[in-house]
């Protein structure tokens, strides 16, 4: 027995050396802050956050019941419900459109992939310059303003009806390169023989797409959906740059993430409340990913 026991322990110093650096970072900057945030979530702090005192776990339920939080969750949900399905549909459409042997197809693929090179700041500033009501491009095209006066007054980003959709469009555009590349890779990994056997069976183009291509694309689509959803729930930069959570007073683009970190968020000076919202966001995301895997996982066909 001594040999086996010894072997079990022989690698311990080495394992400690190899795991140590990662463990230190992950504990100090992921696990500790998580625990600390949960604790901070039941505290009230002064503006400088130098003094905090516990006000009880009831603060979480208070936050949960507050109009501000509920509105932020609703805004986030709407944002996700626009960006994910539209982004996915556009991604699939473009990928299928460009998945043919045609002349110049390489050029189109490059164009469709191009937005992958834009960071959230770059993409948002490009769209700001399109949508901004005074100096924006759209606002300075006369005939367009005649048809859609909202572009100039109050501006697509400043109207409570169009602000969220406008941010969503910029976000969809920014993610489209990623979605296109991933789905194209998924399409190309589908064995050609399957398409051919469906063809021999007499299936037309559309039937081949719905009966062969789409099911086999399942894992890719699941992955893309998960990524797009988590990006939607964590959207911050585009809101910070395009609308600052506004227009006020409806806060129609204040998502949960913006509620925590936004410079014009109404809780920006309350560390305890911010922590409580952050922890609740964490719980929502956990539930969401569990849901996605249960719901979508069942209908996904994995290749052998």
């Amino acid at each position: 027995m001594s040999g086996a026991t010894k072997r079990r322990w022989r690698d311990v110093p080495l394992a400690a050396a190899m795991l140590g650096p990662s463990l230190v970072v992950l504990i100090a900057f992921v696990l500790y802050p998580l625990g600390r945030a949960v604790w901070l979530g039941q505290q009230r702090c002064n503006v400088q956050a130098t003094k905090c005192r516990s006000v009880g776990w009831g603060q979480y339920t208070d936050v949960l019941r507050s109009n501000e939080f509920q509105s932020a969750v609703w805004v986030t949900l709407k944002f996700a419900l626009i960006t994910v399905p539209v982004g996915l549909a556009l991604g699939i459409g473009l990928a299928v459109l460009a998945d043919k042997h045609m002349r110049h197809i390489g050029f189109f693929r490059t164009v469709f992939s191009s937005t992958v090179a834009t960071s959230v700041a770059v993409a948002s500033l490009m769209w700001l310059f399109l949508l901004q009501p005074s100096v924006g491009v759209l606002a300075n095209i006369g005939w367009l303003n005649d048809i859609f006066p909202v572009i100039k007054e109050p501006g697509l980003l400043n109207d409570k009806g169009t602000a969220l959709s406008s941010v969503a469009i910029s976000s969809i555009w920014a993610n489209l390169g990623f979605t296109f590349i991933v789905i194209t890779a998924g399409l190309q990994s589908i064995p050609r023989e399957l398409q051919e056997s469906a063809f021999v069976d007499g299936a037309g183009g559309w039937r081949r797409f719905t009966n062969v291509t789409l099911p086999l694309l399942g894992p890719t689509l699941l992955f893309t959906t998960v990524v797009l959803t988590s990006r939607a729930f964590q959207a911050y930069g585009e809101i910070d740059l395009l609308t600052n959570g506004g227009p006020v007073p409806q806060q129609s683009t204040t998502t949960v993430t913006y509620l925590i970190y936004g410079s014009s968020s109404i809780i920006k000076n309350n560390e305890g409340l911010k922590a409580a919202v952050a922890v609740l966001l964490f719980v929502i995301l956990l539930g969401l990913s569990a849901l996605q895997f249960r719901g979508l996982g069942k209908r996904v066909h994995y290749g052998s």
Partner: protein
Amino acid sequence: MASIRLVGVSKHFGDVKAVDNVSLDIADREFMILLGPSGCGKSTLLRTIAGLEDPTGGEVFIGDRMVNEVLPKDRDVAMVFQSYALYPHKSVRANIEFPLKVRGVDKAERADAASQAAEVLGLTPYLDRKPGALSGGQRQRVALARAIVRRPAVFCMDEPLSNLDAKLRAETRAEIVALHHRLEATFVYVTHDQVEAMTMGTRIAVMRDGVIEQVGSPQEVYDRPASVFVAQFIGTPPMNIFPAGAIEPGDHLVGGRPEDTVISDDHATSHDRGVAATVVLVEHLGHEAQVVCAVDDHTRAIVRMNPSDDLPRNGDTVRLNVPEEARHRFDAVSGARID
């Protein structure tokens, strides 16, 4: 001096006794075969010698040194794996040189030794290729070259030929035997193939269920198998084992090799002793014919005959017998040989 001595070696994986209290002496420069069916513990025993497994109990000696606590690299042992275990990203030359490089041998000496080893195994034209571009037989030889380049005292080989096709296997068998003569080192060779065991080994240790059933020279093991298991594991086709009382009186089993078993017409010599059987299959192999007979529901016997003889036909009733001097007797319960 690289004799190997195993004293009461055991290796347990949880409740499974892969090797159970095995003692074995392997002489310097011997070619020892560990033979047995899969799962018999032969590979585990080999890995214990190489140091890749720590024994649960017992002691392993290489030379005069107890090596239980010695790391594999310090045992002066080389190992050839069934999968060859070549580094796929390194060239053949780099693979062969690698053990020397790790040991800090200088570049020129390393290159010399590698070219020499490659020369011996006919690998010189392939030195700059990657293992992926070689055939199975060539990879196998690279693995051998990597082992010999270190000039270890002991070579451990774990079914090194099992991934080769039949023709290549026969050729490589001869090469390994030649290598053994040339290197003057101790070989421990694991296989489940009795032809390899018979043709290559100076001695064979037949294993079953973690225990050594018999150790002896190939001829000894063939001529005087220590148990029914050994008798049936070695020899193709395997030895016929007749139920107690069928060939001769007594409550022991009687065995006879197919070439020693005689077949006779049921009527002509009906007074002869022997056992009645029904012919179920006659196989013509060209140089011989094999007659498969059913003695009873559980017992089959195979008789080797000259194809030019008068062969029985399917469904014929015949009598089978084994001449007194060719009989092997085994205990009906334990299966052990009775002399």
